[in-house]
């Protein structure tokens, strides 16, 4: 009796082994059960940050004789003028920059723009910083956002999640946030879903005044 049980278990065990071996063998020529055989190198592709299109210049709104917009360097005017450290909104300016929306905390123009060199920006400790490195400037106050940016959880991106397979391009702060009024603008949603058959229609949306 005991011997019989042992034999049955042994047969079952051997059978299971053979089956699993067979399954493995069969899986080999079943592509749908296999991993990708693509060989991926260890070299990482670069992560680039979109360069801000904004710079130390301003569009005059005029066109030259060739139809090209007339771009004027900031220093063209500001080199010969004394900065007013109190200015904190466009309405206070007598000429130029009129109508510019400005809503960025209690900062004034000279909080970020360099008073002696309008072709660059200025950190809180008066150090000069290029427009191209403006992220450094933003990070002074927006530490948590900068930390999240560095960790990859703030800011849009395109390209490859796997840098071994391809490069990635990341947005700059000012791709989404206009430095003069950084709140992300409210917009109309796209692509409304169609109601499915039988889907309940929710009560009309109460519109609040906003």
């Amino acid at each position, binding site marked *: 009796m005991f011997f019989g049980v042992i034999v049955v278990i042994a047969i079952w065990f051997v059978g299971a082994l053979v089956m699993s071996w067979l399954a493995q063998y069969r899986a080999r020529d079943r592509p749908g059960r296999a991993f990708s055989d693509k060989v991926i190198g260890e070299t990482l592709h670069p992560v680039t940050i979109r360069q801000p299109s904004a710079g130390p210049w301003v569009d005059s709104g005029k066109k030259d004789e060739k139809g090209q917009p007339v771009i004027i360097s900031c220093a063209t005017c500001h080199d010969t003028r004394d900065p007013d450290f109190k200015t904190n909104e466009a309405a206070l300016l007598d000429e130029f920059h009129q109508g510019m929306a400005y809503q960025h905390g209690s900062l004034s123009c000279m909080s970020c723009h360099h008073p002696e060199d309008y072709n660059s920006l200025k950190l809180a400790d008066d150090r000069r910083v290029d427009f191209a490195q403006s992220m450094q400037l933003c990070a002074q106050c927006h530490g948590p956002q900068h930390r999240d940016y560095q960790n990859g959880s703030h800011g849009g991106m395109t390209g490859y*999640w796997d840098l071994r397979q391809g490069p990635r391009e990341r*947005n700059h702060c000012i791709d989404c946030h206009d430095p003069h009024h950084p709140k992300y603008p409210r917009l109309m949603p796209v*692509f409304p*879903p169609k109601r499915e058959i039988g889907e309940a229609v929710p009560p009309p949306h109460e519109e*609040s005044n906003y």
Partner: protein
Amino acid sequence: MEPTPTSNGGCGSGCGCHQDPGDGGDGDDATRRNLLKAAGVTLGAAAFAKALAPLASWSRENLSVDEFLQQHYRELDKEQLAAVLKRMEDDTKEDYGADVTITDHRPQKGVKFGYALNLSICIGCRRCAEACHHENNHDRATANSYIRVLEMQKGSIDIEQANAHYDHPVPHPDKFYMPVQCQQCDNPPCVHVCPVEATWKEEDGIVVVDYNWCIGCRYCEAACPYHARRFNWTKPEIPEEEINPDQSYLSNRIRPQGVMEKCTFCLHRTREGRMPACLEACPTGARVFGNLLDPESEIRKVIDNKRVFVLKEELGTKPSFFYFFDE
């Protein structure tokens, strides 16, 4: 009933019935029998013709023999799979006029996909849903998408009260927005209920469907607590020039009528190392995607450092999709 000699007249000469002249009663019965036979044959023939009628209108547009006899995806060997992919490309050319490439993307070793979404940043613009619609060759008529963006009351997480049909400038100050798509559960109810094993979980965590094995019973749609599965009520309509030609067997190839479909984290992109289409479309950067098995990945940094939750955790579905808030 008393038979009369004249009753034989009903069975005239040439009718072929062998009747004993001495037994007029048989003649009467035979007549009725013949009538019934004739009626039966006529009806039968008509029914048979009707039953065969679909065969007459049988065309490749419905189902080719090869398609009908096709094995389950996981049982195909290399040659069969190559033939199937070729056939599908030809069919797409014939049905939609588009030249497409249908590839078979397999998981990478050492990769398990995870997705995280920052509810503090999402503004509910629905660009992800739109990108999904185009990337995955969805039916234009139904404006289908694997992503449903829910507008939720701030301070609540009651999905019953959510609204997916909002059409006012977003974000509304009293609301937050929660896009919901397939959560690629580690314990997927949709897979458990499938009666024909047409859907299963792959090694990299993606729950996939063999659209050619699915019988369209919609059990999975009923089982999914996230309402993430869609049914193709009609043959998808897509203009030729809008078809995304970069297709994959388990992912965004144009689905046949009558089968289920679902988000695959764009496996035709992500298994090549690229980001999913919804992430690239997000204008605010609310989405984070990556490899959960890589401790240095962005998705792991989110899970390690942020306040993360999964949707309907109490159901034990173990999603690979995470939501988080900024502090």
